[in-house]
């Protein structure tokens, strides 16, 4: 038997790997061109070992991170025997481990001497990759071909040389080509930084120690996970929740879960969920897996280092051709951002029946995707993309949080002062949405109101949820207020628009996004007077 490596060496390697992933994220942000990356940090970075196991990730965007192992596996299979030092691969195909087309993934193999020791991976949301609407987030797309350029796994950099033809192809297919180029180079820059740092670690500690440390780091996460679920009730549970609709038909779409915990193994079965739909809310399986990973981490012990070892005791099934394991050519752009949130909701609802003390009421359950595009006054095309936070659900020991991103995303807002410099838009309001939190012993967090006025004619796409079904309460808590989007015409009239649609605004018209509040937890009668008074003084709740 090989002697274990000492604890400090193992921890130095583990901490080092996580720090590399964080550093990659900073490099990507600092070199990037688009506001979506440099201001909102809509990107994620991680490291894999030479066999394709995830070994470290930065604290970035859960829906990006959880779907990464599949894409690395696909690239390894696809390029077996053709992976060399200095190469980088690019892919965005949701059906080959991607999430949705705007998320482009770049994978760089890392060699030390002749040995493949790992991969550095970055995934970033590009604010335009073609398709029928600016921003490539059309709420009414009906197949993936309408959503933009689809890139299968291809070699983007070969032995240190960037393939200019591929760069040109991607730039040509985007409404904002220079920004694409800047962002893609920023991703490569992050990957190369990851490569350099990973080589430093391997060189420093030796290949053998490094490989052994990786095994032990993964085993450590597994041990921590097993210990976290040791006292978990060995029960089955099930739940159902709904999407508002797919943007084509306004019919609610059911998501069903049956979950079981047996012999320290979680099994999530989504059988009974709707078949894939015409609109853009279908999920490639990688996204479904991401949401499952998120829930498992959140309800056990979030401090366990996230890597391959953490997920050894989880299996997920979703029938092929269903909403949660869609087949081509289904449109998927909203699966990643919207349906993923509902998967979390339905899973948490099922877990609330087993471990109620660990589960909050429903959070806003959407990302409120907003894309505004058009031509500036000097006729250059622009696309602005952002997602908007809302209320988090009330918790068994405290209120939900007001105006924040929950569950599968954690992107930042774009500073108003950045928006108004870069785009022909004026932000007229950015505030907490009063009285939107679900009432209860512990109230849900408040949603947000964000109002934009267009200075030029623009096309607006929205992709949002929880406008027909409300974020639910738990243990007697009331639901949070539903979301609402509307436009304000030049005459000052408010016209409510659908949650998933594309509209136009004339110069001077405004779009207003009111995001959902979180559900309440527990009976309102039990709410402490001090909390009621404080909310009243702060004009948060009447």
């Amino acid at each position, binding site marked *: 038997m090989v002697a274990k490596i000492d604890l*400090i060496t193992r921890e130095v390697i583990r901490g080092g790997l996580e720090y590399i992933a964080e550093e990659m994220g900073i490099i990507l942000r600092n070199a990037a061109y688009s506001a979506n990356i440099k201001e909102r940090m809509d990107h994620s970075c991680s490291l894999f070992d030479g066999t394709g196991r995830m070994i470290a990730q930065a604290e970035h965007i859960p829906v990006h991170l959880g779907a990464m192992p599949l894409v690395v596996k696909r690239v390894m299979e696809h390029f077996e025997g053709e992976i060399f030092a200095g190469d980088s691969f690019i892919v965005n195909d949701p059906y080959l481990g991607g999430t949705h087309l705007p998320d482009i993934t770049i994978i760089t193999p890392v060699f030390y001497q002749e040995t493949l020791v790992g991969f550095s991976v970055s995934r970033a949301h590009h604010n335009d990759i073609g398709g029928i609407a600016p921003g490539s987030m059309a709420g009414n797309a009906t197949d993936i071909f309408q959503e933009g350029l689809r890139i299968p796994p291809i070699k983007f950099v070969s032995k240190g040389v960037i393939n200019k033809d591929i760069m040109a192809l991607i730039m040509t297919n985007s409404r904002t080509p220079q920004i694409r180029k800047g962002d893609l180079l920023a991703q490569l820059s992050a990957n190369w930084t990851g490569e350099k740092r990973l080589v430093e670690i391997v060189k420093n500690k030796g290949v053998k120690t490094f490989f052994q440390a990786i095994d032990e780091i993964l085993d450590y996460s597994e041990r921590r996970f097993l210990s976290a679920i040791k006292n978990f009730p060995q029960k089955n549970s099930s739940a159902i929740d709904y999407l508002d609709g797919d943007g084509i038909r306004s019919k609610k779409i059911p998501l069903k879960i049956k979950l079981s915990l047996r012999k320290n193994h979680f099994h999530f079965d989504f059988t009974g969920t709707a078949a894939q739909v015409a609109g853009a809310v279908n999920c490639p399986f990688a996204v479904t897996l991401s949401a499952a990973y998120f829930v498992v981490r959140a309800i056990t012990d*979030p401090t366990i280092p996230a890597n391959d070892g953490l997920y050894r005791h989880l299996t997920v099934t979703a029938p092929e051709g269903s909403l949660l394991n869609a087949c081509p050519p289904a449109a998927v752009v909203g699966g990643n951002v919207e349906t993923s949130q509902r998967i979390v909701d339905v899973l948490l609802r099922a877990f609330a029946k087993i471990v109620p003390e660990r589960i909050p009421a429903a959070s806003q359950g959407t990302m409120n995707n907003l894309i505004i595009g058009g031509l500036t006054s000097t006729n250059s095309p622009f696309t602005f993309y952002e997602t908007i936070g809302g209320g988090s659900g009330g*918790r068994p020991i405290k209120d939900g949080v007001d105006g924040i991103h929950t569950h599968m995303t954690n992107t930042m807002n774009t500073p108003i002062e950045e928006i108004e410099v870069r785009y022909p838009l004026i932000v007229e309001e950015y505030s907490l949405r009063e009285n939107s939190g679900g009432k209860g012993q512990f109230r849900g967090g408040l949603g947000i109101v964000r109002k934009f006025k267009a200075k030029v004619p623009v096309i607006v796409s929205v992709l949002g949820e929880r406008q027909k079904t409300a974020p639910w309460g738990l243990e007697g808590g009331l639901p949070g207020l539903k979301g609402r989007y509307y436009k304000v015409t030049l005459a000052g009239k408010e016209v409510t628009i659908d949650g998933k649609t594309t509209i136009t605004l004339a110069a001077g018209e405004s779009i207003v996004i009111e995001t959902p509040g979180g559900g309440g937890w527990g009976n309102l009668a039990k709410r402490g007077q001090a909390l009621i008074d404080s909310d009243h003084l702060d004009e948060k709740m009447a």
Partner: protein
Amino acid sequence: MITVNRLAVAIDIGGTFTDILIQDISTGEIINISKVATTTRAPEKAFLQYLERELPASRRKTIERLYHATTIATNAFLGQMHLTLPKTALITTKGFRDVLEIGRQRRSELYNLFFDRPKPIIPRRYRFEVSERLASTGEILTPLKLSDLHVIEKKIRDEKIESVAITLLHSYKSNVHEKKIKEFLEEQNPQLFISASFEVSPEHREFERTSTTVINALLMPFVSKYLRILSEAIAQLGIQVPLYIMQSNGGVGRSDVVQRIPVSIIESGPSAGVVAASYFAKSLDLDAVLSFDMGGTTAKAGTIVNKIISLTSEYEVGGEVHAGRITKGSGYPVRFPFIDLAEISSGGGSIAWIDAGGALQVGPISAGSEPGPVCYGQGGEEPTITDANLLLGRLNPKGLLNQTFKIYPGLAEKSLVEKICKPLGLGVTESAFGIIKIANNNMSKILRIVTVERGLDPRDFSLLAFGGAGPLHACALASALQIKTIFIPSTPGLFSAMGLLYTDAKHSFVKSIRLKNTDVDRALLEEAFLSLEEKGAALLKAEGFTEETIIHQRFIEARYQGQGFELQIPITSLSLADPKAIERITALFNTKHKSLYHYILENEPVEIVNIRSNSLGIIQKPTLKKIAVGTKTPPSEALLETRRVYFEADGGFVETPVYLRTKLLAGNRFTGPAVIEQYDSTTIIEPSWHVEVEKQGILKLTREWK
């Protein structure tokens, strides 16, 4: 012959002790050191009394430089005892009062369903909106509505608000409305403290600017009053030079300037320690130093790799330690450069207590210096780390500070029995050692954050332990991380204050350029730099620096047009008279971009965003003095006594030699267990650690690890 000694005075006021150093500028020699209890309610008192007592009026006149590090801002912010924050309000653009609370809309812990956002620093009820709006060009879209101001002003009065922050959208571009509001309030309510964002942090990105301005407003009543009183008192003592304050960036700033931007001195005290540590690393030619500074209230850790102090511009005040991640959001952002360090509320005065679940906890509340640990006999009732060290024999039961400061072991024991032993059913020794173990475990976390969590191996570092309490815990912490070498400087308790004498006077200026490299005119750039340098030189000359002791450093901040973050290019040695200067700057930018990002864009325009200039007044630094050389065996007069001290490795109390630091000679060697006492600190040598006294009087502790 009369020699007039020119003096420099350094004062480091911590939560517990005030440290004072007096240096002869002409020789660089430290001629007086002192440590007095901090007078928490009026921190300046202890120091002023000392000056009056120790220096006659004629000597006070010879003081040429006066440097001060203070923890007043951070202690106020972290809610230490006796310091309550003033009632503060925010005035902002209509529709945007929640910008401060929503922040960047992200949570600091991704997977924790029970996450919290830091409590809004100003509650919604005190965030007032005023009707006005500027465009990003600075153009007025909606004029300022004066009637709104009257309503707000009345509310401020009714609510007895002491300090106000003003942050309006796009005020970094035009201060017209902020200025008007400021003037209006000054006129209506002269008592009010006002921080306007165009003065505090005139940079774009509204949340960070608001947060910085609000924190400034929160600190202003306190800091401003404190510095004003101090400056006046100093003048009354006949000292004619301005007071300089250590800032969070490791440089000093004049108190009248700092008074208006107290947000720049939040980490004043800890910064002085890191500056001292870096000087130490340079003097001893050490490439990897892990600094550990433990005083009465907090402990701080930082690294100095290749003798360079690392600065961070993404600092958050009151942020929680989150596994050393860069991703933040648990505290309040402040947009000023800070020395990068990790901090924990754990010091000699940290109180031990039992939580709701019946577990023993240490900190974060500190007994400070009033009342101080129980053993000080000043009315403290809660047992502290210092009390625990005393009951384990690690501190001299006859008194601290060379036994000039009497302490009462009986009181400490009584309190420990009441508060800890009885509820937990433990003995005195067990409880006392439990407190130390928990404190060490807490403190080892900050050492891990600055090393392990950044992928640095702590075993490659030497631990430099200082602060009054640092040397008490150094061996235990080094052992936890398997560090082989510890250095204890000659005056560990006054080491941070030394940092004040190792710094240069520094004035930084920045000017926004925002031009493509091809559009930049060399002559205009030179002119812009010269005007910044003139400002710097004028300030330095007013402070007594001569032409020969002034140097200027020049930097360009540039990026590819379209990027959001700039790279800083030092160009001090580059002549702008050179016709190829702009091309050379572009080349320097590309080289730096290539080394950091691994690529360059040949045909992409490079945007010169800012020029930055540092004007430095170079100060003569004290050198590390050599001490007398002895043999391997310490001289007999160095052995003060033996007493019973608790060591876990030895299974309990053992008879332990106690040495006097001042009597030890260079070349002396011995092995733990041992105690080394000196005026400003006590060093514990655990079993298996070897001590060697170095020629500059530094203690070098070593231990082998398998």
